[in-house]
């Protein structure tokens, strides 16, 4: 029963890529105030268990809706798009080439005179690319129900976004290493 509820339904929001984050976080706080385990410290074991489950479900839904990337992926999943096969998915060669270049730039950081500055540049670059893909995803999802071609397009975009996220993580890891050495 509760399992069938979507994240949008849980937050009583319409299914839409455009979300007012301020409103979302207010809804989140109100929901947590109603179910959080701290409100059930004296309740029966069963009620406490249920409260942990509900609070976890609300946290999960909030994290998904809050992040544009997770939201996009989730909206596709609601339209029965599966991401199991994404590993076989062909991405356009130009995108892959850029990825390789960025990766190489990250790997060569330590040889640079000002590694932190170079790293900042790369991170900015990643951010710009991510923002661009996000706006493309938004344009696609805004139309509601997608046809097969659109689905495949958005899936490609989400997939690209994941590449960029990995890169972002790698960059952050490098930053930590560089700062560690100072």
């Amino acid at each position, binding site marked *: 029963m509760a399992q069938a509820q979507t994240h949008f339904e849980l937050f009583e929001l319409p299914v839409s890529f455009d979300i007012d984050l301020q409103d979302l976080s207010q809804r989140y706080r109100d929901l947590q105030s109603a179910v959080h385990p701290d409100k059930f410290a004296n309740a029966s074991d069963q009620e406490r268990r249920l409260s942990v489950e509900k609070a976890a479900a609300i946290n999960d839904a909030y994290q998904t809706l809050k992040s544009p990337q997770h939201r996009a992926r989730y909206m596709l999943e609601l339209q029965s798009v599966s991401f199991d096969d994404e590993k076989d998915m062909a991405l356009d060669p130009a995108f892959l080439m850029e990825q390789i270049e960025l990766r190489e730039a990250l790997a060569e950081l330590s040889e640079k005179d000002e590694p932190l500055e170079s790293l900042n540049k790369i991170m900015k670059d990643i951010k710009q690319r991510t923002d661009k893909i996000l706006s493309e995803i938004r344009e696609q999802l805004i139309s509601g129900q997608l046809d097969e071609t659109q689905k495949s397009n958005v899936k490609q975009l989400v997939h690209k976004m994941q590449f960029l996220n990995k890169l972002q993580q790698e960059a952050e890891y490098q930053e930590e290493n560089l700062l*560690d050495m100072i």
Partner: protein
Amino acid sequence: MALLQISEPGQSTNPHEHRLAAGIDLGTTNSLIASVKSGLAETLADEQGNHTLPSVVRYTEKEIIVGEIAKLAASEDPLNTISSVKRYMGRGLNDINELGGRRPYEFVDTDSAVPRIHTVAGDVSPVEVSAEILKSLKQRAEASLGGSLTGVVITVPAYFDDAQRQATKDAGKLAGLNVLRLLNEPTAAAVAYGLDKSAEGIIAVYDLGGGTFDISILRLNKGVFEVMATAGDTALGGDDFDYAVAKWIMDEAGIHDDTSHHQMRRLMRDACAAKETLTTAEVAKINIELDDGSTWSGSLTLDTFNKLISPLIQKTLLPCRRALRDAGVEVSEVQSVVMVGGSTRVPDVRAKVGAFFDQEPLTDINPDTVVAMGAAIQADILAGNKPDDDLLLLDVIPLSLGLETMGGLVEKVISRNTTIPVARAQDFTTFKDGQTAMSIHALQGERELVSDCRSLGRFALHEIPPMVAGAARIRVTFQVDADGLLSVTAREETTGVESGIEVKPSYGLTDTEIETMLRDSIEHAEDDVAARMLREQQVEAERVLEALEAALADDGDLLSQEERKEIDLVADKLRDLSKGNELRAIKDAMAELDKTATEFVARRMDGNIKKALAGHNVNEF
């Protein structure tokens, strides 16, 4: 005239009566207990008027001594006087050796995952030592408040891993406390500070204690304290400053590394005194009594001291940077920096933290008591004394949680700084035909290799229905509760069969070990084990009945007459039984009530959710 009914102090069953609750700051060097009295949180003093209790336990052949008197005996009886035991909580022998420095106790390797310290009173685990500190605080609170405690909140460093948290909770249990919640120390400090100053916006809590360091970034909004990120080091604190100074004295005085336990303890004591002098003075005079009876005198300047501890302070700034990034917050967005923990009295710590956050850190709150006060405020609410309070604490898991996969790699299931409670499911399948068991290795940490992460334990699943290899779909759910503690459940999805799970903690006590310790400690206190267990069960039953009554009063309309009758019947049965002395029967009746009320509880929770959003615009689908 009817006789007046008077209940036992602190055990009143009247829901409107004030329940005694306390917050405990179980620190590396000092511990405190605080409670909310007439609306204000205050730390409780012992009979001599002391508020802080040194976290030192001395074992003698006759008795166990806790606190100041034990601390005074530290250099005279170093092997039986345990201090800084918090550093060993949830740790294995190999970790303790890696902590660095010389450990002045005799650790005993045992069959158990938890090491024991050898004393004249027998071998004791760090959990038992901590329990002694908690018992002493409990006695103090009950004497001061005039009744027994309904429940307590115990604080832990935010960066404590699962094993360290579990060990703390076990210590509470062993001390006979009802642990309502484990609360992260910086969050507790934020609560006390935030409520006191009615602060709103983003704050950073820099908490450098005796043995641990935490940094938390929080967003405060109308009574909601949302932890955005936390980072830290559970083996870094004022103790390390002392050790650095002690090392310096040893070099200057020509004392070798293999000096006696007595000498080492004296050195640490004098190093600590010198550090404290340097919070206000430019130079500290040191006179050391050497083992051969001679004395060494020297002076430590503030400048030299700053150089000695500089790398240690630097080590705290990296986590600060990481926490800001994980929170997605720029330094300029941080409205205030709250300094917590005795070690933030060191002037250079304040200066460097101020420089990092580009603002003067706040030092007008007492860094020693603020954590206990915050814990007391939460304990008061959790005990049910303020049903309408809108305080809400949303905390995070400090370290990522993962599973061992092929090739000694870790696959992350829950990433660090995810808000708790959290649950994630992962599907597994069988490798062989007819396979009925499998083992899952859970780890905590950020690195990719199993060997670089911290092993939490192995979960052995059994009772998997036998099927062809690869046909079973076993959904394993990892849940981290509001205390930051992990639990695992598993279910074969095609048949719906729940798997049995056996937990082998890597660095924790098993349930049997705790049971034995609990029995020993009760017997030691010359209490009747059976009587105490019965009493605890009765209190538990009372609590459940009281909660049910309140729930029925609020939401009774969710039930049909029929359903209500059924619940009332089982509740009455439990009420009758809980007055008797059959432990088993009370337990069974509680389980029956739990089952009967399942549907009611679920409807109530859904009703809560609906009501929570009632104030918002209802968007049409």
